[in-house]
């Protein structure tokens, strides 16, 4: 696809989605994991969903994959509400949308050989494909993710390395000719020398037209690969926009703090000590970042009323009262 033609077509539209969990012994309390999040994902686009633990980034990925229900709001895939998908349509949906998760070893049953996961796909989606053709298809998918089928097939999960397994799982997703991949922290378990290969692989797949939701807590990885960045804090979007704009001109106090805290090998931390954060799960009427905010203009308004996403420049939105 030509660069100009890319990003034209909307693939996913997330409309004000929220996820509320009932907690406490009798489910009397509520925990808002995702609060009123909206963004679009276009064809051939890589979106980095960045946040710390508990920010709701994995929850959003799971809602897109329909692994958990949405409490309110809608997710539209090519204009169709995915929560209405029933058995047949749901299967069709999974033919287009797949996920790969953080720990490859717990994604695969250790009792069976790893390539058993291909067999399940064949039984479910490709019943009519003759075995010979199917084997070719598997080999092709493995080669595409940079694995040598001879070294990989007929092995148990513990005989493969983390990087190999992670690529193996991507190959499984590719067998279905997917349009969209949810990649949830897929490289945080890998070693430095292999993680960049998996990252480059994602970039190559993007070139071939795949859209990716790249969920990570590592800002440098997000910057390396993504077109658009979403910064999440406690279930709400703090800042969203084109990757270059968010990283080169961070506006939300939270994004700034994150960027200052990332350890880098070309920049030393400034000597300003960050204090340990307090974790509260009290529901808040105002800005969720209020407790930790260091903005000089922080005031009553922040505590009482939710700020909304405001477009500061083209393709760059910030969720803060004091950024104009």
């Amino acid at each position, binding site marked *: 696809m030509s660069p100009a033609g890319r990003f034209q077509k909307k693939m996913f539209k997330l409309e004000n989605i929220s996820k509320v969990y009932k907690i406490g012994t009798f489910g009397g309390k509520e925990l808002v994991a995702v609060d009123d999040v909206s963004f679009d994902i276009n064809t051939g686009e890589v979106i980095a969903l960045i946040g710390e633990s508990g920010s709701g980034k994995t929850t959003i990925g799971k809602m897109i994959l329909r692994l958990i229900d949405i409490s309110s709001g809608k997710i539209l895939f090519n204009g169709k509400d995915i929560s209405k998908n029933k058995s047949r349509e749901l299967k069709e949906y999974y033919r287009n949308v797949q996920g790969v998760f953080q720990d490859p070893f717990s994604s695969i049953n250790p009792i069976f050989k790893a390539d058993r996961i291909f067999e399940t796909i064949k039984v479910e989606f490709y019943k009519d494909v003759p075995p010979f053709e199917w084997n070719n298809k598997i080999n092709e998918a493995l080669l595409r993710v940079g694995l040598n089928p001879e070294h990989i097939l007929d092995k148990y999960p513990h005989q493969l390395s983390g990087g190999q397994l992670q690529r193996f799982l991507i190959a499984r997703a590719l067998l279905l000719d997917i349009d969209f991949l949810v990649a949830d922290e897929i490289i945080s378990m890998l070693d430095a020398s292999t993680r960049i290969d998996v990252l480059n692989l994602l*970039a190559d797949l993007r070139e071939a037209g795949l859209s990716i939701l790249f969920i990570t807590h590592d800002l440098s990885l997000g*910057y*390396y690969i993504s077109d658009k960045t979403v910064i999440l804090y406690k279930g709400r979007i703090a800042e969203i926009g084109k990757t270059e704009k968010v990283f080169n001109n961070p506006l939300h106090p939270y994004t700034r703090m994150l960027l200052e805290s990332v*350890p*880098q090998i070309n920049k030393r931390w400034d000597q300003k000590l960050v204090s340990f954060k307090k974790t509260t799960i009290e529901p808040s009427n105002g800005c969720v970042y209020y407790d930790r905010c260091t903005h000089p203009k922080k005031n009553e308004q922040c505590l009482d009323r939710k700020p909304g996403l405001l477009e500061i420049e083209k393709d760059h939105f910030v969720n803060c009262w004091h950024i104009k």
Partner: protein
Amino acid sequence: MSLSVENLTVYYQTLQGPVRALENACFSLADGEIMGLAGESGCGKTTLGLSLIYLSERMRYIQGKVVLSGTDIPIWDHTKMDTYRYKYISIIPQYAMSAMNPTRKIGKMVHDLISARCIDFEKIKPEFLRRLGLVKLSEDILSMYPIELSGGMKQRMVMVISSLLNPELLIADEITSALDVSTQKAVAEMLVEFRNRKFLNSMIVITHDISVLYQIADSILVMYAGQLSEKGPKEEIIENPLHPYTKLLISSLPKIGMKINEKRLSGIPGKPPLLLNPPEGCRFRDRCPVGFEKCKEVPPFIRIKDNHYVACWKVSKKDV
């Protein structure tokens, strides 16, 4: 000099034979030095850290000498080591999140731990509370169970417990890996603060994340497949690495401000050898871009210039 390690070799006993996890490690630490120990998973960095304090059942001491502040440490003798553990050499273990006994209140657990070393807990308590305050934990925490604490709080708690008896050497194993970036920064800086306040003399920080080491360490030691590759001041290692493995490793790290369509980074092709029957000579040989015939012999870990040691036949004093 605080710590000196000579020819330390430790294997793991398995049914298939010995796993050569640590081979001829030679290095030293100056007083007050924070040394980062970096490498990929399975390179033997945790084995090196553990062997200085606690040889587990499967670990076999083969040879080597460890001297801490002028005293020989009998690391091969499980019982004799009891005198040194915690008081002189202490460790913040990997997965400190699950390092605390879940069935005991934290205060009670620390009390037991200190009493087991024949020290009166009441005497040490004021200092203990002062240090808790330093890492922003309140006294209430002592009557809580570990499950009531968040990951970052547990990590800080274990840091305080491990360094309570002012050890000569503290080993911190992957302590920032499971934390959020902001907590990671706070914990890492607290380690430096502990050193500056002389809660400990020198420290070995084990991590796979070189960028954290660049922030807090004084020197970095890089390991590959059980062998030491390079040790030097952190600026030297990051900006001017000499060993081919370090060079490739550093260049594969993405930095903020680097996008794939501007600069495509590459990883290191191949994978580390199995340590059950590792190849003779330099173990990086198969993946090394400059490997040659001589690499079938183990290269010595030699000093190239002040405090900069490299184990590679292709690197010599002339190159500097």
